[in-house]
């Protein structure tokens, strides 16, 4: 504890400094860079509080993908330039006091915890063997609370449908424009070398998720990032929204999930119940399908909708 206290304190101070800087800095580009840096540091925090799975997700989704998406959006930075009305000082003070009160309340909850910390860990450990997976997080996501995970995938799909529904009329069905205007030679080289390695790493991270930190969400984000790199380097263009192959890729994971879930009624007596001894292979089948679908969803969320000028 003593020698890690330096690290912990410095990490917290840096993160709070970055957060304040993000709020006060004028330049939007700088604020987004700050957010990206913040996400990378936040992943170190998750490692320090014994949640490596969450840290991995934060690296992939929270820092990397969100930052890239914020920069990708054309016209986003200048949106609301007209809205320069600075709130009055009394209002700013009021908001400051209220936000401070919320922070103090949460802080008090942290400093004065209940006498017995609530935990479901013993219950999760008790049935871990019957799921056949060694990582308790994966067991929670794929066995104990599999229905949540299914709905989460559907939420991501709904978000994608929402994004696509914002396509301008003239551009519907077109390919989103992702490729950089002119591709520097080093990027081309990197895209050709890094992407195959990245795909291997993405599948590896999904595979080790059964027993070590990892899993399909993290692996799928890596795959989506690699896909994005290919599209940015102009090696392949983004698929058209109306592409049948794209749409099949998007639904194959949820479809396998539903199929195995419904067959649970017949073989194990409940929706999403796995028959004895088959839990691990069934979980692997669902994860493989979801890997493809989530990678496609996240990749298309990163690419955004086609805009004016991206005519089919």
């Amino acid at each position: 504890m003593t020698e890690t206290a330096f690290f912990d304190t410095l990490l917290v101070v840096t993160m709070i400094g970055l957060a304040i800087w993000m709020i006060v800095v004028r330049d939007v580009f700088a604020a987004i860079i700050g957010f990206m840096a913040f996400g990378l540091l936040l992943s170190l925090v998750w490692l320090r509080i014994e949640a490596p799975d969450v840290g991995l997700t934060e690296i992939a989704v929270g820092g990397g993908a969100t930052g890239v998406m914020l920069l990708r959006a054309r016209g986003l930075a200048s949106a609301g330039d007209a809205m320069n009305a600075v709130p009055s000082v009394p209002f700013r003070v009021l908001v400051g006091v209220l936000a401070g009160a919320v922070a103090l309340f949460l802080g008090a909850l942290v400093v004065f915890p209940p006498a017995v910390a609530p935990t479901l860990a013993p219950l999760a450990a008790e049935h871990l063997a019957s799921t056949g997976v060694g990582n308790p997080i994966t067991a929670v996501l794929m066995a104990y609370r599999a229905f949540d995970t299914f709905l989460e995938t559907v939420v991501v799909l709904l978000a994608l449908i929402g994004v696509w529904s914002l396509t301008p009329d003239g551009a519907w069905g077109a390919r989103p424009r992702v490729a950089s205007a002119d591709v520097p030679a080093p990027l081309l080289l990197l895209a050709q070398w890094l992407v195959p390695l990245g795909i291997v790493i993405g599948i590896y991270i999904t595979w080790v998720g059964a027993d070590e930190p990892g899993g399909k969400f993290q692996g799928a984000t890596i795959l989506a990032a690699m896909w994005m790199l290919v599209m940015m380097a102009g090696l392949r263009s983004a698929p058209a929204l109306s592409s049948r192959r794209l749409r099949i890729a998007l639904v194959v994971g949820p479809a396998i999930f539903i199929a195995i879930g419904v067959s649970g009624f017949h073989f194990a007596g409940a929706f999403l119940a796995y028959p004895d001894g088959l839990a691990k292979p069934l979980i692997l089948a669902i994860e493989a399908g979801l890997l493809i679908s989530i990678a496609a969803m996240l990749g298309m969320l990163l690419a955004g909708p086609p805009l004016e000028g991206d005519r089919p």
Partner: protein
Amino acid sequence: MSLLADLFTVAAVTLGLVFFVAGTVGIIRFPDSLSRLHALTKADNLGLGFIVLGLLPQCAGVFDALKLLFIWLLVQFAGATGAQLVARVLRREERP
């Protein structure tokens, strides 16, 4: 043997830290962006390189050691490309 390995780790990791700190000093002290970029890339590659080198004898198995080396190569490769791109941004900003 274990003591020797530990000594090696301490020496190499310390050397790595020296490069990281040197990089930071360079970033703070150098007057223009291009020199700062130079300081940054040297610190990254050598600093992380020596840390990886120092951690190699502490690895539990060959696979972990290979992963460590792979991480370093990845950072080298991507860092070089990234520095190229940042330099391009810089050139464009200077001569609009």
